[in-house]
């Protein structure tokens, strides 16, 4: 692009155009900005939700960081990123890659079915999977049928398996989304690129890595931002399936925020944890955007 074209600031801005965004902006102020600002203020106080707030500075933050239960819950969140983000993206890419090569009859139907978990409420998903994982649920019945009684167990009641098995529910929910995203992305890749790859003698795998993957970069970033955010702020699925248990083996920061604010009368502490979680999500999303930014 030539750079000798000088940008001329518009002198006669029509301020009336701002009126159009005013309603949405007011809505945003009331329902997003003020609660966030209020939470930020509360995070520096000791407050039980009813009585006078007491300013305590950074004490809530230092207490949270020193609380081993909270730091280990953050670790659980990072493990959940593997299941909510990494696995669905891999599966989505795999299916999108296959789609290019293999034409499946009735693909639209499969796509709709695979996307279905996305439109279900997490509460419904949680209750359904709690039943599937139950000691006498379909998963264990299936294992028993194949003579695997040794393997079957109360999955969500196990200190070793509950976290990955809750994570797998997230994988099931999210991969419909990544798949649709990537399939749409693949369709906008010019077919000339694939023809050229074929002329150069590229096989299916080489074609995937040299044509499909680079052209899906934008979609992958969207998928990463969306799924990582969900993995970190996820609450309903854990609340419904395990409640953070057994013990603290599936405890995540958002469960602590709920328990502190609504069970333990510690609104100040809950607010500071909320701000910490927001900051963590913001940092990770920024990192993703920086790593994948266009280097032109």
């Amino acid at each position, binding site marked *: 692009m030539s750079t000798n074209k000088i940008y001329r600031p518009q002198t006669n801005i029509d301020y009336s155009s701002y009126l159009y965004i005013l309603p949405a902006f007011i809505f945003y102020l009331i329902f997003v900005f003020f609660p966030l600002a209020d939470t930020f203020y509360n995070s520096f106080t000791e407050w*039980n*939700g*009813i*009585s006078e707030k007491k300013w305590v500075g950074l004490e809530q933050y230092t207490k949270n960081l020193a609380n081993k239960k909270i730091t280990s819950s953050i670790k659980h969140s990072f493990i959940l990123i593997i299941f909510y983000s990494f696995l669905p993206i891999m599966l989505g890419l795999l299916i999108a890659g296959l789609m290019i090569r293999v034409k499946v009859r009735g693909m639209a139907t499969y796509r709709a079915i695979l996307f279905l978990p996305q439109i279900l409420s997490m509460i419904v998903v949680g209750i359904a999977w709690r039943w599937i*994982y*139950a*000691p006498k649920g379909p998963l264990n019945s299936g294992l028993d049928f194949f003579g695997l009684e040794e393997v079957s*167990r*109360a*999955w*969500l*009641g*196990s*200190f070793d398996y509950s976290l990955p098995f809750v994570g797998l529910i997230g994988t099931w929910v999210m991969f419909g989304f990544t798949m649709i995203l990537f399939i749409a992305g693949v369709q906008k890749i010019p077919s000339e690129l694939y023809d050229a790859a074929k002329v150069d003698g590229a096989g299916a795998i080489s074609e995937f890595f040299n044509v499909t993957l680079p052209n899906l970069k934008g979609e992958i970033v969207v998928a990463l931002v969306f799924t990582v955010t969900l993995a970190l702020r996820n609450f309903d699925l854990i609340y419904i399936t*395990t*409640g*953070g*248990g*057994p*013990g*603290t083996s599936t405890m995540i920061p958002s469960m602590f925020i709920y*328990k502190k604010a*609504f*069970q*333990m*009368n*510690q609104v100040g502490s809950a607010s500071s944890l909320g701000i910490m979680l927001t900051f963590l999500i913001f940092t990770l999303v920024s990192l993703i955007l920086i790593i994948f930014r266009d280097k032109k």
Partner: protein
Amino acid sequence: MKKIFLIISAVLAFSFASKAENLRILAEAGDEATLTAAIAQFEKANPGVTVEASYLGWDDFMSTIKLKMADNNPPDLAHGNQGFTVDGTLIQNGLVISLEKYADQYGWKSVFADGALAEFMWSDDGATWGSGSLYGISPVAEDVIVYYNKDKLKSLGLSVPSNFAEFENALKVSKDAGELPIALGGADGWPIIHVWGLVEGAYVDPNQTRSWIFNAKNTDFNTSDRMTAAKKLADMANAGYFGSDSLGIGYDDANAMFMNGEGVFNLTGTWMTADFNSGMGDNVGAFAMPRASGGVAGGGSFALPWHISSKSANPDLAAKFINHLMSNDFVDDLMGVGRVPAQSPTIDPTSNLQAEVIAASNALIGANAKTFYTDWATPGMYDTVTQELQKVIGGAASAQEFMDAMAAESVN
């Protein structure tokens, strides 16, 4: 002009005088049948009075009640929950009033033994619990007892245990015969608190447990008796007396299992009596848990307390309604909706089970052996005790680790 003013004020006065009185109640949903019966009677006995009751399920109720009472237009009468988390907070912030005046007027205290109402007594600043003024009251008793499958116990050649060693033996015999000894919904966490209350009660003096709950910060949790109880619970878990899947089963599912003939014993609260009775008929019995050294003990208390809002325009009417619930006449109605009245009923129990449950409840009251619930002790105790008990049941923590975590939360 003066005339007009007089007429207006006369009209106003008249309209106020004849205005129907209104009482607004917010209750936990478990009380819906009880209140429906009580409200109909109360409205009939007090013409012109309208009672509006609304209900919320346990989780919703407990997470919003403090905010609702702090609202500018709170209900006149509402449930609280024993302990510092709800009742303590309500009293500390002056949101509910002392019921001393009404207790004297209606004679509520004389109905119960001395000290029986301690769980509703607070200092007026809400800082000390277990003595002081009466801030709440309830007509219903809720006790944690042992329900058992009569056919199974009989076919195993066992009888109702008269001490804790016999209870343990019954568990072992059940296990050896391939039965599930105890149906437990450990996935929900809190049902294990009830099991712990019974095992703790078997070894620890009830007075000691109550003192700890009223004042956890300054009372030693880590006593040798309680250590014995914690070890006993861990041994029971290791022996497989709760089955291998209990942490994957919710409370409702465990009760359904028990009613479908899985599990010899079920250690739970008297609020399940009506359900068990309709699900198992004459095949279910109940007894209070016998202690190791004789006598009985167990978790239990009154049901959720009734509080009068400090912003209520008509606290006298609210108190009158509470008195209707507390009255001798209402005792039989409580039985009718399947609850266990805190006062002795005048009619015969409606089923074998209800008779046994009332006998168990009376035994606990008579021995002054109700030990409340562990999670009342501190605002963070519910979380700690449910998590730590899940670890004990799942073999992920030793009795010592449980004791240490609990002692640490006590002073938190």
